[in-house]
């Protein structure tokens, strides 16, 4: 699935575009906890999140994530847009909840990372 197709599936709107719409997305992931993103985020993954503060962009930058989708029609503050432009991260907004956005993308063929093996509740 490429960025353009994802935006269609999510009925989304591109807020900051730093990537070619034809760029392929390897997998999807969803989280609100930034440590989770840092631990499980993989290069190129699309991150679906309910948070819109600038730290989400920073976290994505650190985890090598290029595309962030804000769920439930949340409009990020200007600082977030600014930082995304600066850090070469693309931002997209969708009206769906995180659950439904995941559901639709998975249904449309965007894979996840598979089961997680952890020890001791750590990651």
């Amino acid at each position: 699935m490429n960025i353009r197709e994802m935006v269609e599936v999510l009925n989304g709107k591109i807020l900051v575009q730093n990537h070619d719409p034809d760029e392929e997305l390897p997998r999807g992931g969803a989280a609100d906890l930034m440590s989770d993103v840092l631990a499980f985020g993989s290069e190129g993954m699309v991150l679906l999140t309910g948070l819109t503060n600038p730290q989400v962009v920073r976290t994505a930058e650190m985890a090598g994530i290029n595309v962030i989708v804000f769920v439930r029609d949340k409009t990020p503050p200007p600082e977030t847009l600014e930082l995304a432009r600066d850090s070469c991260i693309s931002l997209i907004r969708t009206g769906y909840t995180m659950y439904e956005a995941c559901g639709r993308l998975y249904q449309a063929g965007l894979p996840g990372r598979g089961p997680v093996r952890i020890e001791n509740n750590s990651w």
Partner: protein
Amino acid sequence: MSEIKLVDLVQALDLTVSAGSQELEKSVTGGYASDLLSDVIANSKEGDVWLTLQLHQNIVAVAFLNNLAGIIIVNGRQPEEATIQKAQEQGVVVMCSAFPTYEVAGRLYHLGVGR
């Protein structure tokens, strides 16, 4: 779509049940995924199954408060002992999956939950 029960999810997604196994006949009318308790309190709906990687016992209180069908803890993590105990007391179903939120939501949606 016919009625979907928690027990159907447990079977289809191979979930382990940590608490509330006597309540698996509850029906599931939707799904909600979030790791922010305040978001879940404000936006989840009665009958939703809630996907989170939070383990703290507060999740039981939130599920109870909003009359959620149950909780699925994702990413292969296990609830804390206090969480299990509280869930048993309040009849809240706590299930676990080795998969991350994205795929658990994807599979539930595919089953017809929340569509």
